[in-house]
């Protein structure tokens, strides 16, 4: 054979193999995703520019479900808040944006705003407006305002319009939170539509520095005794390896309770539920004055004495605790599922190996611990009594629940919620009708985990698809900074723990809605007493201080509050 022909053959073969290998490498992954996202992405700009044009054609390309449209259109007045952080697309403002245009073009509701103020001024401005008789047709109220304005007779009864008009999606979303509609019901009638969110999101989980556990050979905690032992070892065995005794086992700040580094999860491990109302012996009881608090307080006191707690916790606010976490000096904190996004991510600033894992709240005994959480219903949409079309509110809510919040259609999400490529413009902030799905966090996480298990992101919306890629980058490329997504939404992450909280490992605050009369006056003082008592005991005062606090709590108004809360429970079964 001609040597030259051999050479040509060989070179050709080698080059073809190389090019093929590169081509396969490039195409292998891309082939997994079948959605033509390039087309979607390029359509995003078109969506926005179209939305900016005030024509019904702007929504023609969207697959929307709108059964009832006002023809001719009706006028509806409202009031709104716009904070300095709210950004608009060019040419838009709060009076003319994708939502006002959608309500008019798609529902036949011409929404106008009587006034718009900064969020901090809203309650005051609303009060002045209502007192002057200038009542908007649609507005947002707090639980206390709901009660006040209902008693004043200025709110429309929504009971019948809800029954007649609420779509299946609306009913489903509102029923996911068992107290949502109850909180808007007074004397058996519905006076507002609760703006729902995920209540279970504020349930406590235990966050532990996993890299420290690995380094010290510590197994995951199965009891509060394990938690105490982990705290001791984190304090005494120099988990950061710098040779200095500068680490603490457990972090919390002077407020003691909160979503970041709060103590409620620690107390929950002892079956104590500070700050919430739960059923005991057939009545609602206030958790902070129950005997289970004692054991937890004694253990905290011992931890403090052993140096496992920041000696300056009593003067440190959450920002200072965050700084301690960022410095890599904290081994554990009781927080909520999203803590890795902040502040736990900061612990990687000085140590790329730092990462945290969420655990369910362990129990002090054989009875499983329950994470406490409270309803996330803080405000309601209400209609003015006398407005001719109170059902319009239900139709606006239906538009949101049927078409927006559950939509997996990226065109719809980009048009009405916002585009990930333009994160400063959050479109849903322009409408008061925003009901988040109470189980949304859990359902999205389930979809994400199913996609991860099958290694197939097809069918995920852009947001979930991105989270999928980030988790993939962690496991397949070793990008340690992606642990945040793994620790929250990934398999064995924090969100799966919330599922167990919803099943049988959670305890919901049974009191919701407007503070009772005595509660409104005296509870702030009682809460201050409670914080001082806990702080003092942790720092070494006698546990008898707790007994004294319980006695004082009842004598300084607690007894009346308990009676009022139980009366409220009787009136609101």
């Amino acid at each position, binding site marked *: 054979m001609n040597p030259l022909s051999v*050479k040509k053959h060989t070179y050709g073969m080698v080059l073809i193999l190389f090019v093929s290998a590169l081509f396969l*490498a490039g195409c292998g992954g891309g082939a997994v995703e079948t959605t033509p*996202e390039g087309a979607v992405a390029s359509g995003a700009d078109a969506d926005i520019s179209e939305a900016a044009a005030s024509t019904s054609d702007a929504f023609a390309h969207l697959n929307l479900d709108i059964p009832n449209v006002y023809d001719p259109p009706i006028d509806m007045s409202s009031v709104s808040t716009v904070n300095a952080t709210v950004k608009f697309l060019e040419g838009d403002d709060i009076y003319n944006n994708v939502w006002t245009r959608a309500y008019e073009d798609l529902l036949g509701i011409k929404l106008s705003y009587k006034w718009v103020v900064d969020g901090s001024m809203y309650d005051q401005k609303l009060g002045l407006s209502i007192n002057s008789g200038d009542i908007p047709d649609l507005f947002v109220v707090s639980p206390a305002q709901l009660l006040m304005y209902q008693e004043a007779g200025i709110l429309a009864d929504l009971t019948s319009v809800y029954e007649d008009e609420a779509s299946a999606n609306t009913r489903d979303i509102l029923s996911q939170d068992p107290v949502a509609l109850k909180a808007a019901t007074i004397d058996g009638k519905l006076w507002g539509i609760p703006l729902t969110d995920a209540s279970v999101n504020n349930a406590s989980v235990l966050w532990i520095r996993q890299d420290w556990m690995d380094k010290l050979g510590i197994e995951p905690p199965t009891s509060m005794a394990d938690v105490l032992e982990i705290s001791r070892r984190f304090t005494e065995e120099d988990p950061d390896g710098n040779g200095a005794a500068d680490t603490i086992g457990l972090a919390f700040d002077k407020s003691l309770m909160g979503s970041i580094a709060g103590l409620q999860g620690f107390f929950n491990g002892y079956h104590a539920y500070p700050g919430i109302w739960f059923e005991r012996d057939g009545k609602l009881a206030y958790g902070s004055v129950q005997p289970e608090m004692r054991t937890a307080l004694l253990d905290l006191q011992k931890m403090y004495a052993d140096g496992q707690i920041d000696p300056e916790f009593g003067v440190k606010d959450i920002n200072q605790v965050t700084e301690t976490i960022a410095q890599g000096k904290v081994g554990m904190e009781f927080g909520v599922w999203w803590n890795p996004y902040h502040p736990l991510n900061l612990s990687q600033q000085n140590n790329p190996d730092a990462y945290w894992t969420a655990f369910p709240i362990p129990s002090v005994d054989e009875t499983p611990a329950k994470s406490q959480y409270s309803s996330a219903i803080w405000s309601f949409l209400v209609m003015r009594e006398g407005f001719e079309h109170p059902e319009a509110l239900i139709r606006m809510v239906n538009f949101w629940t049927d078409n927006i919040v559950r939509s997996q259609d990226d065109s719809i999400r980009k048009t009405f919620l916002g585009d990930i490529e333009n994160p400063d413009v959050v479109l849903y902030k322009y409408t008061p009708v925003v009901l988040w799905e109470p189980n949304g966090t859990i359902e999205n996480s389930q979809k994400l985990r199913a996609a991860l298990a099958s290694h197939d992101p097809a069918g995920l919306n852009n947001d979930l698809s991105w989270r999928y890629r980030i988790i993939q*980058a962690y496991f397949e490329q070793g990008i*340690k900074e992606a642990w945040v997504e793994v620790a929250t939404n990934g398999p064995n992450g924090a969100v799966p723990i919330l599922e167990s909280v919803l099943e049988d490992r959670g305890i919901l605050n049974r009191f919701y809605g407007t503070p009772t009369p005595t509660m409104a006056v005296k509870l702030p003082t009682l809460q201050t007493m409670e914080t001082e008592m806990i702080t003092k005991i942790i720092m070494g005062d006698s546990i008898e201080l707790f007994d004294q606090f319980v006695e004082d709590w009842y004598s300084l108004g607690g007894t009346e509050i308990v009676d009022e809360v139980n009366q409220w429970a009787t009136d609101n079964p």
Partner: protein
Amino acid sequence: MVRAHQGPVRSHLPLILLGAVMAAYGLLTALVGSWLAKQAMQGAITAGVYRSRLAAFDQTSSLVAGILFLALFIWCAVVSTGIVRVAFCFGALASLAPILAPWAEDLLFKSLGLPTMSAGSVLAGAVTTLLFALPLTILFILLACGRGVPTGCRWLALASIPVVLVTAFYPIYVTLLAFLIRPGDPAVGRMIEVSSQVLKLRFILPGLSFLFLALISMRFARKQPLADSQASAVLAEG
């Protein structure tokens, strides 16, 4: 032992072994990484267990691989002459990358005290990648420039340069896009998928390059008359 007929490279065996070991190491790390990632993504093991097992594997395998690379590069240099020897001497520096990879973060951020800029693993990965890719790039440039090196080997060396650079730096580029420059961009999301596959080729493709270099060189050498020492020289500077 496979021998060239004549010339400064007295044996192709070290080159074959180098390519085979590098490709096998790449394949092994890709397989083990994929297996552990699959288990973790399915929830069969926790992220903590995933990390522990991967770290244990990396620390052992990369040390062994690095030492083997070093020995084989040195052997290649010993059996070659001229610019080819210089090339393999540069290549030997690449063997430090797998050895240092498990310790890169400690070295950079604890020993040297460099700032992590909240992207420590990315920076450490970039440094070790640089340590691997640059010597190999220089090696292939030298081979491609060597006038006495058979033409086929020179073309293959030339083709290997972008292969090494792309497999090394594309994942880093994508990571920077994903976490710093364009987070949330769906297009970058798809690049992450591609990047995961490219990453698996980081050792496999250079390993194949060395194997094909040996193959071409051997075939070339066999076809040349023994009298023509210049033409039969394999991977050698004339």
